[in-house]
């Protein structure tokens, strides 16, 4: 049966040759290589749940009277976007689960990308020949953040509406073109002519996802073409890749991991409430609530806005709201551009144009590691600055003190972190037996009553890791050995 259908396809497409070598592709094993998979699989969940949501969501700012099953809202005038989001949460069966899973998947998607990126950064996996894939990855991160913002803006609730208002003001702050961009995007001065929700909708469900899918294909295609990096270890060199074969081992593990990721997301979607828009209420431009905060991946931008002093530049009949433009446009622009060109920066510093397939240990590259730590410290610091009001309340401190603390903490902490990380890397490199398993010490007493300690024999690791790697043997399947190459890549001889 399988034979027959494979023959049918191969007669027409000739997939047997390439397909066979694809099945033999080797994937190195390391837990940190899973982080990107989390991002990939939450994206799968995002697409699935997202399609479900589009079947019920109405992207319209048109006002209607709510008649759904959520009693406190009955009889109120709300937008169709808001009514349909509440409706798909309460009146569409499984709707709430799908909506909350979608939101959780987005948060996990971006979190996984961030952690995956940190792994790639600190181990130097972005070096030649993988610079392009790094750029593709950073682009996906930016698009993911943009789409997250657009997505949580769609329900037209009080919190997200405030977010859109802030976004408009940030656009407006751009010198020369700000007002134009804002007017064109919103169809006029804020709040515009009601076009923003349908426009955000089409960007959120079609334009950005289409680009993301394309970039994702490129990301994975490059990964397959260039083969995965690996940590140094037994038998692992720059010229080979050691691990499990694509089929069946890796495929089984990664498919199982898809189910696990989805299980966690749907579990959260059912048990951990997220974005309860019926509690926030419909967006009205004159209403606001206390402690309005965006989703976590926007927090760093909000924090930067909070700690910025009120420096507005006025002159020559023009105004440049630097207190908005610098933290909300220039700052993220700088961060993303540093990320995008980081491989270039490192190349400029090291002039290293060799191929790198073996990963670095972070401690072996103290400057890169310290730079990464400084960047993370900066982002965490501004992230926490986005909750100055909540902190002031929680610690019973004056808001002003909390703000002044962050005004110093945000620029200074990364510098301190840089030097601490740099020092730790150096200390670790100099430490004896670093990176080796600690041996058990055996304390024994001699007949004279003297105590001596001796190190035990090295502990054996996982038996398979101790083996010398071999090419995927012909034995696994029944291919004629004559059709195989020593590299484990099979080619049919013409």
């Amino acid at each position, binding site marked *: 049966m399988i034979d027959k259908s494979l023959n049918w396809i191969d007669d027409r497409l000739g997939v047997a040759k390439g397909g066979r070598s694809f099945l033999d592709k080797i994937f190195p094993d390391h837990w940190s290589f899973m982080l990107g998979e989390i991002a990939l699989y939450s994206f799968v969940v995002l697409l699935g749940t997202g399609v479900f949501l589009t079947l019920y969501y109405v992207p319209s700012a048109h006002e209607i009277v709510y008649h759904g099953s959520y009693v406190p809202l009955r009889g109120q005038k709300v937008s169709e976007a808001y009514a349909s989001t509440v409706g798909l949460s309460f009146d569409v069966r499984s709707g709430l689960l799908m909506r909350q899973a979608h939101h959780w998947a987005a948060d996990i998607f971006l979190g996984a990308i961030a952690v995956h990126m940190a792994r790639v950064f600190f181990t130097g996996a972005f070096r030649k020949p993988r610079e392009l894939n790094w750029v593709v990855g950073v682009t996906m991160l930016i698009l993911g953040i943009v789409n997250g913002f657009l997505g949580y803006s769609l329900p037209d609730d009080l919190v997200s509406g405030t977010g859109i208002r*802030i976004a408009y003001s940030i656009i407006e702050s751009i010198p020369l073109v700000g007002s134009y961009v804002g007017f064109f995007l919103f169809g006029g001065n804020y709040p515009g002519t009601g076009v923003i929700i349908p426009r955000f909708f089409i960007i959120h469900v079609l334009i950005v996802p289409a680009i993301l899918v394309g970039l994702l294909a490129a990301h994975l295609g490059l990964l397959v073409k260039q083969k995965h990096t690996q940590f140094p270890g037994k038998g692992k060199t720059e010229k080979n890749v050691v691990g499990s074969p694509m089929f069946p081992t890796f495929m089984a593990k990664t498919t199982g991991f898809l189910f696990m990721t989805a299980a966690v997301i749907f579990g959260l979607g059912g048990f951990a409430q997220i974005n309860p828009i019926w509690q926030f209420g419909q967006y*009205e431009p004159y209403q606001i609530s206390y402690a309005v905060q965006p989703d976590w991946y926007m927090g760093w931008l909000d924090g930067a806005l909070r700690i910025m002093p009120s420096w507005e530049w006025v002159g020559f009949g023009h105004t440049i709201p630097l207190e908005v433009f610098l933290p909300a446009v220039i700052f993220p622009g700088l961060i993303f551009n540093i990320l995008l060109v980081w491989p270039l920066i490192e190349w400029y510093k090291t002039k290293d144009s060799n191929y790198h397939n073996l990963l670095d240990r972070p401690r072996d590259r103290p400057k890169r590691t310290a730079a990464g730590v400084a960047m993370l410290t900066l982002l965490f610091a501004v992230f926490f600055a986005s909750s100055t009001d909540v902190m002031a309340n929680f610690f019973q401190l004056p808001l002003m003190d909390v703000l002044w603390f962050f005004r110093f903490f945000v620029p200074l902490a990364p510098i301190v972190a840089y030097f601490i990380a740099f020092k730790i890397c150096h200390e670790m490199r100099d430490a004896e037996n670093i990176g080796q398993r600690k041996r058990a010490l055996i304390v024994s007493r001699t007949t004279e009553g003297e105590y001596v300690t001796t190190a035990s024999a090295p502990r054996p690791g996982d038996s398979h890791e101790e083996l010398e790697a071999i090419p995927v043997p012909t034995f696994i399947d029944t291919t004629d050995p004559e059709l195989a190459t020593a590299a484990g890549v099979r080619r049919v001889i013409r």
Partner: protein
Amino acid sequence: MSDDKPSPLPPATLDDPHLQPATKHPQRMQNLAILAMVIGMVGFVAFIVVYWINASNQWEAGTLALGMLGLGVGTIAWGKYLMPQGPFVEERHDFHSSEPERAAFNAAITGRGGLEVKRRGLLLGVFGVAGGIMTLAFLVPGIRSLGPKPAKSDDNQGSTDDSLFTTNWKKGARLTTVDGRQVMVDDLEVGGVLTVFPRGYEGSSPDQVILIRLAQLGPNDPPYPIAPPGKTSFGVQGYVAYSKLCTHLGCPVGLYQERTQQLVCPCHQSIFNVNAGAIPEFGPAPRPLPQLPITVDATGQMRANGGFDQAVGPGFWERP
């Protein structure tokens, strides 16, 4: 691709350690994997049942998650413990092509198509420019149709949209609550606040104004408890009215602290001193909230005594 000759792979036998599952008890692990997948099955069936009887969101999530968890654990156990673990090795090859291949590729790009035409560069240039202009031609409607052009100032002839500079507040406009009720002079106690709009524009974003009663003052008293410089006639009978749009990012400045007589923006904690013309005392807001001149007519109705003297809300390039 390098041209290595196909050669037979090293032979491996059934008992080759690379092909052994990573567990000493494959039978037990297989049973476990099957059990996990069966639990998964039960979870999925339970999900369908739960959906059928319309149980809660938590039941749906729990059963679905259980299903995928079971299936996931089973599949991973299968892959991790019951399949050939290797390690296996695959060779890498340098990505770059050989020098002759590169040269041929370069020659093809630069040489081809120029064989018969003399001035290929010119052709190419004209093609590029035309293509660029075509892109521009598509961009003109693609961008320009999106929205109106913002006016450079408020004294234009109506050909552009001057809404950045203007609001619907004019002399005599009635102060109205969002549900359309006329605001009377005795509506607020001292320390009370109310969001008001010009009649006919209830709920409008740029027109929102926060009305505060600072003190109980009569028609013959000075309008303020403490008179701010330059705007002595903007308040009336202890009332002041400010644009509710934060000058930082346009959030509604909705929190009023009566004790300190400060308006606080909940978005980024800018604090405005209501007693001193709403100057920003703290936080990122750069300018005072524009003040709306108000008055009380003979019947006690509150009205605007003019429009704002400046653009409301956050800063922008065209703002003078």
